[in-house]
């Protein structure tokens, strides 16, 4: 039953390091750790299967596994929740998959210096359940809040739905411990103090070791920010007759300067018509409702109450029609669950088919949003014309900056893919569409990804263009830190770092 290209001595050594109960070579254990929800060529599943899976329980074990991988020159792929929307956790070159889910303990809650120290396998919802009695929260709130894990949030440098108020993952992770690609265990933060938020000592290594998609190491422990549990939440949804007025209103709301503002989200006409397919909140809305802008605020009651009045005034004065408490509160409360389910899928002829949801997520400045939107929809329209297994599920633009949410936007186009029908030709067309979508973002002065990462097939080709000279620095760093290209090889075009002629 067991089939693996990893030689038995390696498996034996892994068993010695992690224990027999935590090393898996069975087919199902490996096949179920081949993919993430990112676009996945399901018809080529077997190309992405790891050779062996380990579930370590300590940083020391992970360090030993990585050292062993260096000795045998076997790829190592870290995996936390496996919920990422780029393919950081997909084993492109097989090898040893290090799954950190068993490391999910809370190590310390420090109510004086306001930190919680955790292992990387803990989920934010579960963490917040434990923090509730203390009156604090860890406010990292991605769409995958009920299932993604802290380790993956660091590996992708994640983005939070309430980041405008509380910051994104990079603002909320104070320091962490990481096993480097050669097996050394170090701690990085702003400077050296594990609970220090701001330091000018040395290089700013925390940023380097976030968002690398597992190419620079495996996080084994993290110290996180605690904020007071908000007393008040306020959500307001506005409707607009056209995109232009919704876009202008979004700008006015985002520039309001209200410190409690957690986010402003603009849904375009395609997204609205997608929601009208089956969402009971939107089906009854009159035709004049073409675009929607959602806003949310958090803070103390004393802050949120007056700010909410001002926000409502700005929304209405800039052309918005308040959709009422029921939609506002209900839609906001269901923000993690609502906007992407496979059952919404339709072929161009209207047939309901199970489609998987894929979103391309650039960072785009406010001024560029209208043009990017037109060009992206056109790319997807051409894709659907040729391959009716794709479906345009619309776009949204979400304030992107932490604490100062006005200049640029997480901009997503959601595309449904009928995976049951995927083949090489349609997959290649999809990859080209992704490349085109990324090129539009870069051409408009944006960035290929605001939150998922940009290492997926297709868009990754544009990374050197976006990064310019910075990409050469990335390659040099990779080669210095990972001389044998052990850590998650094949990602981010970093194999180029090891080609002849590359300066080492």
């Amino acid at each position, binding site marked *: 039953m067991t089939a693996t290209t990893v030689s038995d001595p390696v498996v034996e050594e892994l068993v010695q390091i992690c224990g027999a109960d935590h090393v898996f070579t069975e*087919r199902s254990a490996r096949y179920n750790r081949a993919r993430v929800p990112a676009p996945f060529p399901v018809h080529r*599943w077997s190309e992405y299967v790891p050779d062996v899976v380990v579930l370590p329980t300590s940083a020391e074990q992970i360090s030993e596994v990585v050292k062993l991988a260096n000795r045998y020159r076997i790829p190592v792929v870290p995996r936390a929740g496996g919920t990422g929307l780029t393919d950081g956790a997909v084993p492109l070159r097989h090898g040893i998959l290090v799954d950190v889910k068993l490391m999910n303990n809370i190590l310390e809650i420090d109510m004086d210096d306001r930190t919680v120290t955790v292992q990387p396998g803990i989920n934010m919802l579960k963490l917040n359940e434990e923090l509730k009695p203390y009156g604090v929260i860890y406010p990292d709130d991605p769409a995958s809040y009920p299932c993604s894990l802290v380790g993956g949030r660091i590996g992708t440098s994640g983005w939070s739905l309430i980041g405008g108020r509380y910051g994104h993952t990079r603002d909320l992770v104070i320091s962490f411990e990481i096993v480097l690609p050669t097996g050394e265990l170090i701690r990085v933060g702003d400077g050296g103090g594990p609970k220090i938020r701001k330091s000018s000592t040395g290089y700013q290594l925390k940023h380097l070791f976030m968002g690398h998609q597992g190419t620079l190491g495996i996080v084994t422990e993290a110290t996180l920010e605690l904020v007071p549990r908000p007393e008040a939440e306020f959500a307001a949804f506005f409707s607009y007759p056209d995109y232009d007025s919704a876009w202008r209103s979004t700008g006015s709301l985002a520039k309001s300067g209200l410190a409690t503002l957690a986010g402003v989200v603009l849904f375009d006409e395609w997204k609205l018509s997608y929601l009208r397919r089956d969402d009971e909140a939107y089906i009854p809305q009159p035709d004049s409702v073409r675009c929607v802008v959602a806003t949310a605020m958090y803070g103390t009651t004393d802050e949120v109450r007056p700010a909410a009045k001002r926000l409502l005034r700005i929304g209405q004065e800039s052309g918005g029609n308040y959709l009422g408490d029921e939609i506002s509160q209900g839609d906001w409360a269901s923000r993690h669950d609502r906007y*992407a*389910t*496979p059952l919404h899928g339709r072929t161009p002829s209207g047939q309901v088919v*199970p489609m998987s*949801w894929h979103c391309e997520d650039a960072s785009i400045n406010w001024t560029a949003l209208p043009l990017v939107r037109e060009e992206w929809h056109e790319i997807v329209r051409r894709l659907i014309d040729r391959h009716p297994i794709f479906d345009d599920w619309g776009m949204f633009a979400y304030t992107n900056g932490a604490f100062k949410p006005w200049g640029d936007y997480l901009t997503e186009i959601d595309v449904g893919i009928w995976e049951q029908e995927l083949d090489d030709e349609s997959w290649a067309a999809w990859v080209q569409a992704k490349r085109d979508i990324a090129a539009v973002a870069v051409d408009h002065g944006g960035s290929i990804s605001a939150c998922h990462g940009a290492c997926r097939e297709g868009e990754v080709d544009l990374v050197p263009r976006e990064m310019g000279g910075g990409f050469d620095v990335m390659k040099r760093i990779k080669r210095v830190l990972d001389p044998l290209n052990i850590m998650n090889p094949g990602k981010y075009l970093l194999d180029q770092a090891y080609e002849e002629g590359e300066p080492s």
Partner: protein
Amino acid sequence: MSEQSEPTGNGHREAQFAQEWRNAAYNCYSSGHKFCREVCPVMQVTRDEVHSPTAFHANIVAMEQGHLSVEDVARDYVHCTQCGACELRCPNTLFTGDFYRFRTRTVDVVKAMRALAVDSGVHQPNWQRWVDATAQWKSEPVLGDVPVSQDHVADWAAGLSIPVGGETILFCDCEGAFYRTSVPRAAARILQAAGVEFGLMREQWCCGGPAAEMGYTDRAREFAEHNVADWRQVGAKRIIVFDPHDYIAFTEDYPRYFGDDYQFEIVLMVELAAELVRDGRLQLTHPVERVVTYHDACRLNKRKGIHEAPREILRAIPGLTFKDVDHVTQWSYCSGAGAGLSIERPDLTAEISRRRVERAAGLGVDTLVSACVWSERPLSEQGGKRDEPVDVVDLLELVAQAAGLDGGRAGPSATSATVGTEGTEAAQ
């Protein structure tokens, strides 16, 4: 590396299975949300992705593509209590299910895969032994090496003067009949006190639900056919059950077996008891001085949406301090006893129960009240191990006590005393 399974002898059966379940599997596979994972009682302990509802669906996609066979995955599907939490937490069910008349059916997927495994000759040894013993004795071997038999299936009712037959039958679950006999005794006392006429079966067999849950569908059907024939022979119209697992078997499995011919009204004892209290037919006048919390039985709360009636009863018991945890929070709670997990992976059941009891202890209670007799053995074991023990009591035991009825609490230690032969009208 590219891997393709060699076609096996079960290839045709597997292909048919994959065809039947492929859209359900893709609806999960395509979603990829995995919101189910952290509410899953097994995943919370093992943290192993192959035990997740996501994997249970993805495996079918992999089978369709020829990557995995039933032999590869059968053991993974042991790791499920069929509690239904994942189905409730699935965005497909939550937000679009009504519109498309679709709901995620992980429990059915797990049952179907287990049945495919059995049909393909892939057995889990402890389940096989359990079902074989059940077939031999007609009751589940809940006392381990001590045989359970038809001679003793109604011993729990000793001295209660319950007739055999009639329009209303009290069905006694195997765990209740042989292990926690205090629960059926409490149920019977309550019914008698409230003036509800009822009888016992002439010859009661296991409901067959556990066999169905473990994949032994033919065996399950045999039990069902016997029981339904017995009900018909005594002219039964109404079946009262106190065990949520029986309730599932009688309201979901049996109607599938018998179709339109199945006309029995199935009454859940907890709901009936709440009604009796509400209508004043059962007076709860004896104070019960305990500080309790309620354990939402998975098959009531998550599978059937029944969470109000038990709380209504607890609030009606004088003297009781009730520290409630809402039923949605309890989606992620379980005793770990369901669907045969305790038979194949008792270590996991123990750990799931330990965590459940720990949550109860964190509320500062002295008693955890359950309405599922199967949960009470593992929960009691863990409750008793604590420095400050948490007592685990069945809701019906509490009701009987509050109503001043004899025959309330009789724990496992009383089991041997109730396994006797004398004087039970129902014994054949």
